[in-house]
């Protein structure tokens, strides 16, 4: 019969001489041995990880150091820098607002294009498109995302602007203008928004959709009222990242938005953004250690701070989003 007596605890300690021998060999076997090779590899890998820290330190240190130089220039002070509406280094006016303003305008236009279209396209791809259509459309959007920004700049300058001028009249639309830059930037960012949102929508478990269908919901109801809310934080993260991309974008604005700071709210006028300014100054022949030159570090620092904040926000959101379904 399968019944067995359950052995009382007291008998444990009895170990016969034979086994003392056997187990001591075994224990010697269990003993740790140093593995120097593994140690060394681990050290090297740690160094690799630490390189990124050095990079950040480098950025913060260099930008800080040079910005400090900039702010030590007699003509410059921080308050004026942040509130001034004129940027004319030649006459000692260092107000950053025209640059910021232009950045915000291009960003705004870009977002007006990219966010709604990107999200709608994402919904189409993840909810409506047949697997075949999706397999065909997605790589195309990825191509769009992989095109270098300088190409978009070219496109804005040589196609979009002339087109706008034809439609709206060349009096209203200047050759360089923030609107055209923003529009093309929107097209450039659209695939990013679409792809990230689509990932978020895709991460919503099929089960959730089936649940909705199973209760007699239509496709649109399922998509808008169940899937999108479930992916919301992922979508918002995509949006914020898109904003950050727009703020940091250089080549489109450098080519199409115009050179020369201009404090204007008219999107059809030329205005230089922060990034555009940096690119122009550094590309030109301004000598080291002039206030002009140093100013790019101050503006770089501002840019770094803004995008960093946006990125952290976006990452926080998508981290929260990841926790929901595991």
């Amino acid at each position, binding site marked *: 019969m399968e019944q067995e007596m359950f052995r009382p605890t007291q008998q444990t300690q009895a170990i016969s001489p034979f086994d003392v021998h056997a187990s001591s060999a075994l224990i010697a076997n269990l003993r740790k041995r140093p593995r120097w090779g593994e140690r060394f590899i681990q050290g090297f890998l740690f160094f690799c990880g630490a390189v990124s820290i050095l990079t950040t330190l480098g950025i913060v240190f260099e930008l800080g150091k040079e910005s400090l130089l900039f702010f030590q220039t007699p003509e410059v002070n921080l308050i004026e820098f942040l509130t001034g509406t004129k940027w004319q280094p030649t006459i000692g006016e260092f107000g950053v607002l025209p640059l910021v303003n232009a950045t915000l305008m291009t960003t705004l236009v870009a977002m007006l294009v990219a966010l709604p279209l990107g999200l709608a396209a994402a919904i189409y791809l993840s909810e409506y498109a*047949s*697997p075949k259509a999706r397999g065909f459309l997605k790589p195309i959007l990825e191509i769009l995302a992989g095109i270098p920004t300088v190409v978009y700049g070219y496109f804005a300058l040589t196609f979009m602007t002339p087109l706008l001028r034809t439609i709206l009249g060349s009096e209203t639309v200047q050759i360089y203008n923030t609107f055209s830059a923003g529009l093309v930037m929107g097209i450039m960012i659209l695939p990013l928004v679409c792809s990230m949102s689509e990932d978020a929508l895709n991460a919503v*478990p099929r*089960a*959730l959709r*089936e*649940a*909705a*269908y*199973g*209760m*007699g*919901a*239509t496709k649109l*109801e399922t998509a808008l*009222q*169940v899937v999108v*809310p*479930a992916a919301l934080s992922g979508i918002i993260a995509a949006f914020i990242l898109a904003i950050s991309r727009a703020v940091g974008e250089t080549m489109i604005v450098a080519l199409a938005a115009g050179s020369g700071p201009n404090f204007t709210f008219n999107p059809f006028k030329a205005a230089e953004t922060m990034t555009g300014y940096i690119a122009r100054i550094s590309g030109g022949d301004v000598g080291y250690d002039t206030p002009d030159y140093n100013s790019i570090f101050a503006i770089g620092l501002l840019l770094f701070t803004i995008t960093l904040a946006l990125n952290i926000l976006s990452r926080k959101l998508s981290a929260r989003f990841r926790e*929901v379904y595991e």
Partner: protein
Amino acid sequence: MTETPFPNNAYAIELRNVDIFYGNFRAVKDINLQIEPRKITAIIGPSGCGKSTVIRCFNRMNDLVPSAHLNGEILFHGKNIYDPDVDPVQVRRLIGMVFQKPNPFPKSIYENIAWGARVNGYRGNMDDLVEQSLRQAALWDEVKDTLKKSALALSGGQQQRLCIARTLAVRPEIILMDEPCSALDPIATLKIEDLMRELSTQYTIIIVTHNMQQAARASDFTAFFTMDTDRAGIMVEYGPTSQIFTRPKDKRTEDYITGRFG
């Protein structure tokens, strides 16, 4: 017991000569099955024999798989639900479904239940409906103070009962369950089984389960499916659960039930 939508001797739903295909592959063949109203019917069988395929056809859930199609008839109130003039959205409202893994919407408990009713055009008092559905699903006492909290904060077993409550809120006649307890621990599983028993006084329940013991414990009727030589699923035996588990008529059923195979 509530009003009787069925005439005596009528089946809740009936499959007639049903074949189901994925593309060219016949996943299930020649199923004839009559489901008794207000009873629990379990579908058991080895993996891949087409249990999920069949149960998902009861409310046209397989429409969502592009390659899937069906021959034969599925009669519900005398109407073939696969007729071209039948609206699958309507079918799914009347024949609800509960899934393998608890899948509450990432909304509040209240909203989880209210949503389905709302999209289906429910106009009554929503609070009452929510309370009633939760009570039916034996969940009210556990959540009545936290209706506004996220449904995802509930335990697995509670989530699954919430999914049942949500299905009840759209007032279906039949509830389909595809391995509703496979993600739950034994105690939560037994709770769901008790709940099913309660619900079977008012609803027709069809459950697919991998767990023979669960079919034995929780169902009134059992259908045993297996795979034919051509890998198509067939129904081997269908009868009262007590008979299937003590005196199965078919050798294949006996072998499966007793843990031996072919």
